[in-house]
């Protein structure tokens, strides 16, 4: 079967007078890790919640695992894993009890103890959920999302509030899931996360899709071109070039010495992304 795991065309969402999504289109292929990037309020969560079946779309079409998320039933739900942005359940249940309880809803769940091990909660298995730290609770959220052995996993800002070490361990877990063939749709505003995990990314701002493509091809070519900067008697200079070393060599030949404050910068995803967002905000 070659249908994409997720396909949206001209997706729109209005809340009364306010338009949250102005016609967004993209597709996520099977087995892919796809990152949805954008600033707060860009429409990331609205998009993902429409795909999860929590919100109704105002226009356009959406297909998730071949079904319309607005009407799909429990068979469809059994093939999804959902990690919501935040949850604040009272947490009277114990960690393993909670995970085993949810595992019982699925036709072919993963082994509960293996999942606890994978998210690093084995030692906390007998604790009440309310006794977990913020980061541990988030890992339990992820465990609850994957225990049903989903074909497609939605992760809505999964690592917000993680320390760097916890984030790296989490990334390792996501790579393991991907290697097992799980399709993953991830929203994040951490660009290093998108760069570390994503095969492809889409950038959303102001309810519109700004760009979509492989992580290293995001943004206009110009914005991804390396920059050479140096200072001379006239002040600071900046030149974009695909051959920055040649530019520097020319510079040395012309001035006959080491130029002051020379640097070559290859724009990171973050630089590219910020320049795109700034352009949108300048237009608005």
């Amino acid at each position, binding site marked *: 079967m070659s249908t994409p795991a997720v396909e949206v065309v001209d997706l729109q969402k209005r809340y009364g007078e306010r338009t949250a999504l102005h016609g967004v289109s993209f597709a996520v292929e099977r087995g892919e890790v796809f990152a949805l990037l954008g600033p707060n309020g860009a429409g990331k969560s609205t998009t993902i919640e429409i795909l999860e079946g929590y*919100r109704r779309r105002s226009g356009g079409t959406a297909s998730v695992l071949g079904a319309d998320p607005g009407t799909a039933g429990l068979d469809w739900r059994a093939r999804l894993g959902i990690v919501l942005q935040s949850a604040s359940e009272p947490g009277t249940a114990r960690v393993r009890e909670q995970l085993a309880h949810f595992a019982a809803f699925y036709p072919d769940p993963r082994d509960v103890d293996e999942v606890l091990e994978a998210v690093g909660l084995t030692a906390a298995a007998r604790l009440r959920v309310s006794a977990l730290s913020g980061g541990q609770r988030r890992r339990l959220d992820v465990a609850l999302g994957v225990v049903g052995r989903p074909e497609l996993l939605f992760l809505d800002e999964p690592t917000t509030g993680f320390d760097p070490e916890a984030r790296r361990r989490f990334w390792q877990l996501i790579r393991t899931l991907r290697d*097992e*063939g799980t399709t993953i749709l991830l929203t994040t505003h951490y660009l290093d996360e998108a760069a570390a995990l994503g095969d492809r990314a889409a950038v959303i701002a102001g309810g519109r899709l700004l760009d979509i493509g492989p992580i290293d091809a995001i943004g206009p070519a110009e914005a991804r071109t390396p920059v050479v900067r140096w200072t001379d008697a006239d002040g600071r200079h900046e030149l974009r070039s695909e051959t920055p070393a040649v530019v520097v060599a020319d510079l040395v030949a012309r001035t006959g010495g080491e130029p002051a404050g020379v640097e070559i910068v290859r724009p990171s995803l973050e630089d590219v992304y910020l320049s795109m967002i700034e352009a949108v905000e300048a237009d608005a």
Partner: protein
Amino acid sequence: MSAAVRQERTPVRIGSSPARALRLGGVRVGYEVRQYFRQRDTLFFTFLFPTLIFLIFAAAFSGSGDVGAAPDGSGAISVAAYYLPGLVAAGVVLSGIQNLGIDIAQERSDGTLKRLGGSPLPIASYFIGKAGTVLVTAVAQLVLLLTVAGLGFGVALPADGEHWLRFAWVFLLSIAMAVVIGVAVSSLPRTGRSASAVIVPVLLVLQFVSGVYFRFTDLPAWLQDAASLFPLKWVAQGMRSAFLPERFAAAEQTGTWDLATTALVLAGWTLGGLVLARLTFRWVRRDA
């Protein structure tokens, strides 16, 4: 998490079989009952409440002599015995409408329902879980109250099968009514935080006008008529018909227990509540 395989799995069909909904409903009952007894605040305010109020009433009025003596001075019962049916009725309504209504409203606002709604748990299983939990906790609450009343205050429990049978159908019908009304009222509070503030006062007023704490026929006639529109008055009356001596029927509004009317009113509220619950229940608050 093993074996790197990147292939299409054949989706396992779970269908919408009633057997699966029933089995998961049973799983939910076990899970929810465990959570119920871990929450100290509900344990105190819902579970122990009727027994605590009973203790206070029984102690406060222990010196005021017996009530309801026949003209020849015989057959009077203690104040404790007189209050018992009202508190049994209050227990059902607290476990059902109040505790369930607040519980579901909080689950809606703290994300519990959203998470369940994102899983393949059938809604029917969720409701079976809630109803089963109310039944289990209401029975446990009842056993505690009857034990305290019987052993602590010498209140005589029904001696014959007819009265126990009467008790059984009034109790079960009341539980069914309280569960569906509880689900229906859970969508009234806008937030989980406001749930207690919205639901508790309404039920408190209803308890006072429905003959739980006062003799119903001491209320002004218009208030009796108004209270008769609501189910709690009938639950309390049904419980009196099961626990009090037959002679006490003469003290009711119509001079009888009105058992047929009780059954009709409770069944009506159950059906109405079922329709309302079905129409209003959502895993998440729907946006525009």
